[in-house]
């Protein structure tokens, strides 16, 4: 992000999510999967959403695509894509957008692709449907896309079934499928988690290079801070269905200001960290979303909550403001001094 351009807020962002709440009713009760989430994504930029399992990161993005069953879920708030409200849009309108203006790359391409149809057919179909292209035009486009993502002999592989591709090649084919209609918003949900590390590096670089060419906005979801550091322009850290911290990659990873982000960074060894320093795990376990903690979702595991006066942390839910901010009751001076005294020395 260039320094002199003011941060876009609200209305002029390409995708703007405001106060999103997603609840599922289950046998055990109501799961508050996402609870008051707001964020923006700009054109051509990548927003990285990082969080552990159950933090609500995948639910958020399935909501953007309108893929939740309305019978079992309650969705409130607003999702605005390029001026169009998605939460009130009809299924017909959403179908026009999915695979066209917005596309998704899933974690496991073997389950995300149909085993009964050839890869080529699955690539061509959205192009024919959304662009009204002929079968021949769609095939030409698909072969061109397969070549672009590095599938050898794309003309021959066009007629292969997904199981005939290796894991890395399958993920490349899925990226080609998502890019067929030149989407303006691309959602990648843990796209490399199932892959080996050398293949992951290939796919991440490929996505970055393709973004430069296609100019799509990307929402990149992962639990891996290293992957986020390499992929994203901005980062949002999620925990228990809420956003904890937001900022540019530099801000969040080099000068983090939230106790949960501190915990994540200090619990993770790096290739150049001092092996004699023990890792600092986050005590406790992630919260149950059936009955989330009152106040700050992270407060039961937070080691700094005793520095906040009174019982603020367990009674009042801290809000995350616009732009660079943290949802935490510590004062800015406290965050700064804790980071410099306790956290930064560990990360050196």
């Amino acid at each position, binding site marked *: 992000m260039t320094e002199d351009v003011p941060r876009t807020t609200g209305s002029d962002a390409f995708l703007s999510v405001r106060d999103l709440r997603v609840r599922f009713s289950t046998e055990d009760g109501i799961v508050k999967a996402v609870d008051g989430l707001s964020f923006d994504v700009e054109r051509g930029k990548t927003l990285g959403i990082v969080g*552990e*399992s159950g933090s609500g990161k995948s639910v958020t993005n399935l909501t953007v695509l309108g893929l939740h069953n309305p019978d079992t879920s309650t969705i409130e708030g607003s999702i605005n894509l390029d001026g169009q409200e998605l939460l009130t849009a009809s299924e017909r309108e959403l179908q026009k957008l999915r695979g066209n203006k917005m596309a998704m790359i899933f974690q496991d391409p073997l389950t995300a692709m149909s085993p009964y149809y050839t890869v080529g057919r699955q690539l061509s179909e959205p192009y024919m449907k959304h662009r009204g292209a002929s079968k021949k035009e769609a095939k030409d486009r698909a072969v061109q896309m397969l*070549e*672009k*993502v*590095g599938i*050898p002999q794309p003309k021959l592989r066009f007629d292969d079934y997904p199981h005939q591709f*290796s*894991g*890395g*090649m399958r993920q*490349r084919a899925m990226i080609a499928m998502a890019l067929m209609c030149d989407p303006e918003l691309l959602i990648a949900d843990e796209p490399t988690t199932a892959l*080996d*590390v*050398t*293949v*992951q*590096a*290939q796919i*991440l*670089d*490929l996505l970055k*290079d*393709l973004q*430069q*060419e296609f100019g799509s906005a990307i929402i990149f979801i992962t*639990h*891996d*801070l*290293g*992957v986020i*550091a*390499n992929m994203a322009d901005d980062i949002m850290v999620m925990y228990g269905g809420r956003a904890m911290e937001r900022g540019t990659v530099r801000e969040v*990873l*080099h000068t983090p200001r939230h106790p949960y982000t501190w*915990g*994540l*960074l200090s*619990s*993770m*060894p*790096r*290739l*150049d*960290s001092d*092996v004699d320093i*023990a*890792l*600092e*795990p*986050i005590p406790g*376990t*992630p919260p149950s979303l059936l009955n989330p903690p009152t106040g700050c979702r992270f407060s039961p595991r937070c080691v700094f909550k005793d520095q906040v006066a009174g019982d603020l942390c367990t009674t009042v839910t801290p809000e995350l403001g616009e732009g660079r901010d943290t949802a935490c009751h510590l004062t800015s001076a406290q965050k700064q001094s804790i980071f410099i005294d306790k956290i930064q020395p560990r*990360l*050196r």
Partner: protein
Amino acid sequence: MSDNLTAPEQKHAEATPAAERRTLLEVKGLTMHFPIYGGFPFKRKVGAVQAVDNVDLTVAEGEALGVVGESGCGKSTTGRLITRLMEPTAGTITYRGQDITHASRRQLSPIRSEIQMIFQDPYSSLNPRQTVGTIIKSPMEVNGIEPAGGRTKRVKELLELVGLNPEHYNRFPHEFSGGQRQRIGVARALALNPKLIVADEPVSALDVSIQAQVVNLLKKVQDELGIAFVFIAHDLAIVRHFSQRVAVMYLGKVVEVGDRDDIYNRPRHPYTHALLSAVPEVEIEDAEPRERIRLYGDVPSPVNPPSGCRFRTRCWKAQDKCATEEPPLVQISGNRDGHLTACHFPEEPTTQARGEDVVLDPALQALEAEHAESAESAVSDKD
């Protein structure tokens, strides 16, 4: 920690330098080929998955040996062979001077209690119908061990040692979270005072914030009880944090083995370079730029591995010699003692950025050349 948990003769292991430590486990020429049957009407052997091929490894007393590699490299099979959960096709496994390669059940039973295993999946590795107490107690019952003060007391000590509440003795596994279940797995492995624990991806099923809890517990167990570990994982940073020595495997072979520092700071094998360079890292602000190596494609099939060096099909330094002659795992010139590399044309011993990135992926090459061109034309337009 209470006294009866320590293995006294190993207490001094931490203090003695690695070279002087006694060898606990030695593996020579270990090979595991899984037969593939096919054909009609009579099934016959038509090939073999060469999961592990001619692997040599040693583990000293009280030492943690890390085994890293990508899926299909044979690291888990190696772990299962060491614990003799499978019988190898060829090679020898020597445990404390005794050849256990083809030992019978009866011959193995005293050794089984000394070599324990921790599994990857904390859900499928604990019997859901047994209480935690029963699960941890059963190794003692099977081996007829009656610790001082009784088995129940010992189970409670073990629960406390791994950071669980001893009062939860009567609970069932489903009442615990993933990280806590993995602690139960650790307690079960410790129940018989083992000398060697084979941990197969012990933290990869856990959330990031929980991984550190289990890694710290295993490290504490290793330091305080002097237990040797074979730590199998795909996460290079966690292996580095845990292991004193590291073996890098590729397609059933050990391609490089050495001290932690040798492997992570002075790697010689091109595959080790590629692997380290591929790890996505949160760089600290003033970090030196790392080399960038992008391989192309996936690991070849172990049914029909490449001739000669198995990495040659993805290697940027491969020459004719690599296809005809298999490189031996030896101490090549420039390596320190104990640092062995199997490569005809080794790389420079550094991980820092080189003059030009190694990018073998044609799609990346094409896109990056395009971007470089458009950046250049943008600059010349400005002029």
